[in-house]
């Protein structure tokens, strides 16, 4: 009794406390500042009851608002019970600016409760987040209210950087674009793009992934690298780089809250089981000012063709001894660092004693090889002239010229018998060119054999024998088809098979009967006649032989339009046979002959009429 009283008292106190709770309706944002593409939550919380339907949230231009679900909470603190329901909405900023969301209204027990509008400031992500060069360490991503420092609250941002901001024409510049991500899934990441006026761009290198610590926070970083080549002097701006991708955000589902406040929704273990939302976003970096300088006039070599970098040159000559007209291969290999695309064929000093051809060029990794074919015109050619190659080194900001040679060669006269010109078009592939030969043109000589003679103007298709030859196989096919069909029917249809066999069997039976008649052996005669007729009719109408009687056959033939005379003959033959088989008196010769004739007529009739 006492226990009941205590429980009643507690219940009363709770009820009173509950009743005493004031109802109110509040709106709040997960954070008041956000960047474009970074979603956040809007919470509409009603305190004092959990029986509140989802309030309407009017759409706001520049934001996408999506209802997530309700979350209820009940707390008992110092005997006081507080109950609330929170309706959650996901807000995705689509553009920058300041947005007012709300006010919001909720209905409870006939009364309307109002929550004031909330203000969200959305900034362009790069203006606040991106940095060039080695990025200053950002603050660790936080989930609380945003702070003014860069990166605060940003869990994804894009940076762009170049290895130098002052370059010479043709000098390569390495552009590095990085995507920093902290705890957000990304998918469908596209290659970044950016304006690069004044530069030509090479293909992107294979993207790299690594982890990087920025201001104490660990980020997953996706790195894109690309070589740019300065092509025109002047001041330019690279970027901003933009990158499109899809952000994968965990859904926050509408499970009920725990009794004691701490929500399990934040727990990764549970969250990971409730799917994801995917939002397309576009990240943008800052711009990078960059200057392209012209080549200095001072000290520019005359053979300078625009090569920029730090190079070396190796030259070889093969073979060192040749006949006039034989080719000599001059191999010039340029190696080093820099823009190999700007490297042109080294200059060969006077080549009057040699005939030259367009050099073959191959590029392998960090080297460029030129193979120049030289053909000595006279045996006075004693050496391959000097080869020179000039380039501009942007590190030292000076021109440099590499000179190699001259290279001695021994040229000898060609024996008279070998007056051909030998030319090498490709390394290792030799071709012989003989003095131009005069090729005659005429018709080919006549044929010696007359070949297969045939009548003029006669063709195969005009021959009737040919068409007969075509017709015969077709005729065979038709005959075969009909025969095959018939055989198939005989095989499948027993009645049809019996029908076909009936006349032959009847003829055999009648022949046997006739032989008995010839011997005046009447009992077996009548027996044979009866069996023959019975078998014939059984086969003819597909009936069991034992069931064939005069009456059965009459019942079958009369409706089919059989002649009365035949029916009478049939009955007579059956009765005469019955009499001869079972009675003591057997009808004699004349009657037997007459019976046989009647049976023949019956069978002939049935074969002709085909009833």
């Amino acid at each position, binding site marked *: 009794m006492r226990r009941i009283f205590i429980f009643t008292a507690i219940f009363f106190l709770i009820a009173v406390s509950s009743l005493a709770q004031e109802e109110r309706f509040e709106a709040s944002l997960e954070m008041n500042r956000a960047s474009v593409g970074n979603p956040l939550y809007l919470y509409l919380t009603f305190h004092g009851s959990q029986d509140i339907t989802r309030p309407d949230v009017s759409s706001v231009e520049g934001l996408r608002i999506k209802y997530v679900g309700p979350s209820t909470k009940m707390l008992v603190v110092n005997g006081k019970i507080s109950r609330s329901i929170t309706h959650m909405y996901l807000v995705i900023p689509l553009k920058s600016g300041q947005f007012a969301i709300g006010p919001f209204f909720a209905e409870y027990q006939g009364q309307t409760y109002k929550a004031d509008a909330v203000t969200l400031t959305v900034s362009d992500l790069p203006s606040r987040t991106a940095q060039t060069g080695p990025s200053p360490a950002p603050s660790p991503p936080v989930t609380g209210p945003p702070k003014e420092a860069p990166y605060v609250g940003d869990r994804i941002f894009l940076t762009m950087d170049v290895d130098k901001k002052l370059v010479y024409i043709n000098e390569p510049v390495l552009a590095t674009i990085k995507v920093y991500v902290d705890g957000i899934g990304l998918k469908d990441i596209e290659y970044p793009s950016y304006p690069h006026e004044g530069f030509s761009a090479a293909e992107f290198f294979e993207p790299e992934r690594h982890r990087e610590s920025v201001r104490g926070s660990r980020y997953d970083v996706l790195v894109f690298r690309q070589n740019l080549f300065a092509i025109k002097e002047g001041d330019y701006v690279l970027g901003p780089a933009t990158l499109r991708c899809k952000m994968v955000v965990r859904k926050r589902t509408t499970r009920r809250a725990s009794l004691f406040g701490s929500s399990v929704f934040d727990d990764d273990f549970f969250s990971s089981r409730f799917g994801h939302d995917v939002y397309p976003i576009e990240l943008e970096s800052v711009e990078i000012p960059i200057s392209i300088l012209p080549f200095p006039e001072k000290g520019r070599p005359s053979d300078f063709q625009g090569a920029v970098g730090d190079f070396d040159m190796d030259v070889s000559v093969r073979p060192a001894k040749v006949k006039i007209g034989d080719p000599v291969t001059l191999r010039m290999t340029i190696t080093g660092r820099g823009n190999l695309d700007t490297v042109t064929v080294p200059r060969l000093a006077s080549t009057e004693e040699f005939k030259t051809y367009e050099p073959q060029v191959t590029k392998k990794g960090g080297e460029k090889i030129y193979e120049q074919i030289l053909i000595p015109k006279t045996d006075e050619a004693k050496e391959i002239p000097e080869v020179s190659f000039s380039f501009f080194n942007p590190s030292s900001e000076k021109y440099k010229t590499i000179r190699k040679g001259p290279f001695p060669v021994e040229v000898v006269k060609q024996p008279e018998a070998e007056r051909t010109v030998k030319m090498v078009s490709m390394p290792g592939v030799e071709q012989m060119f003989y003095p131009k030969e005069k090729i005659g*043109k005429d018709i080919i000589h006549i044929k010696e054999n007359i070949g297969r*003679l045939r009548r003029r103007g006669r063709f*195969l298709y005009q021959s009737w024998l040919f068409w007969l030859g075509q017709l015969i196989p077709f005729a*065979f096919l038709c005959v075969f088809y009909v025969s095959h069909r018939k055989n198939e029917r005989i095989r499948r249809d027993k009645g049809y098979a019996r029908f076909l066999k009936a006349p032959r069997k009847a003829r055999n039976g009648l022949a046997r009967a006739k032989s008995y008649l010839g011997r005046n052996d009447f009992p077996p005669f009548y027996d044979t006649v009866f069996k023959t007729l019975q078998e014939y009719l059984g086969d003819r109408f597909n009936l069991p032989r034992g069931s064939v009687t005069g009456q059965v056959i009459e019942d079958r033939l009369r409706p089919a339009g059989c002649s009365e005379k035949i029916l009478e003959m049939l009955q007579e033959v059956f009765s005469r046979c019955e009499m001869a088989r079972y009675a003591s008196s057997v009808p004699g010769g004349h009657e037997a002959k007459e019976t046989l004739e009647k049976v023949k007529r019956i069978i002939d009739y049935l074969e002709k009429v085909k009833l």
Partner: protein
Amino acid sequence: MRTAGILLSIILFLTMGAPCPAGGEGSPERTDPEQLFARGNDHYEKAEYGKAIDEYKNVLDEGYESGPLYYNMAGAYFKAGSLGRAILNYERAKNVMPRDADLISNYRFARTTAKGRVIPEKGIWTWTPLRLYSASFTVDELTWLSSGIYMLIIILLFIAVLRPDKSRQVLAAAVLLFVFILFNSVVVWHEVDKMDTAAVTIAPEAEALFGPFDSATEFFTLWEGMDVTILKTKDDWYKVRRADGKVGWVRKSDVERI
């Protein structure tokens, strides 16, 4: 099954052994034509091209023809300076031995020496694959090909009767082959029609007129060796169409049917 085997054997015997002579009038007497041909060759080798042509013509007058005969005749005409008749006989030789390499070479060479080329009209028969196909076989070869495929269809139909479980695939194959026979028949028809109407200009230069009378206005020129198609005949005149589609009237003596 045994019956089917016997039937197939009979059919194969009949089709393989079916007498299908080119002329249908028995084997020609080969001695005279061969001697005439050999005499023509002797004259040719002595550069007596006129006499060689006469000997070759004698073979034709006997009622026989052959690819080498036309080929040699064309050569003799070419050497005698009659380009039009040379090309004419090369065309005739192509109808009998279209894949002969010497013939193709000589024909091309003769064509390159001809004057006055025109850009041919486009049409289904100028479509390269079809043109190559029809030009690579004689009419008799195409007829044999159709006949062979027809026999194949008959065999497939036998199989379809004997194996009803496979009849759908077999009949589909037979239909495809039948479509090919139809296509081949159209090619044969075109080739035969071409033989009736195709002609070559044998006059060194012939004016095609707007009408079949001498006072008609000149329309275009036919050069020696130029191909034409005969559309109509009237008295001493042929109404011809040039490869570029121009139609005019020329004297019969200026062109000769292939």
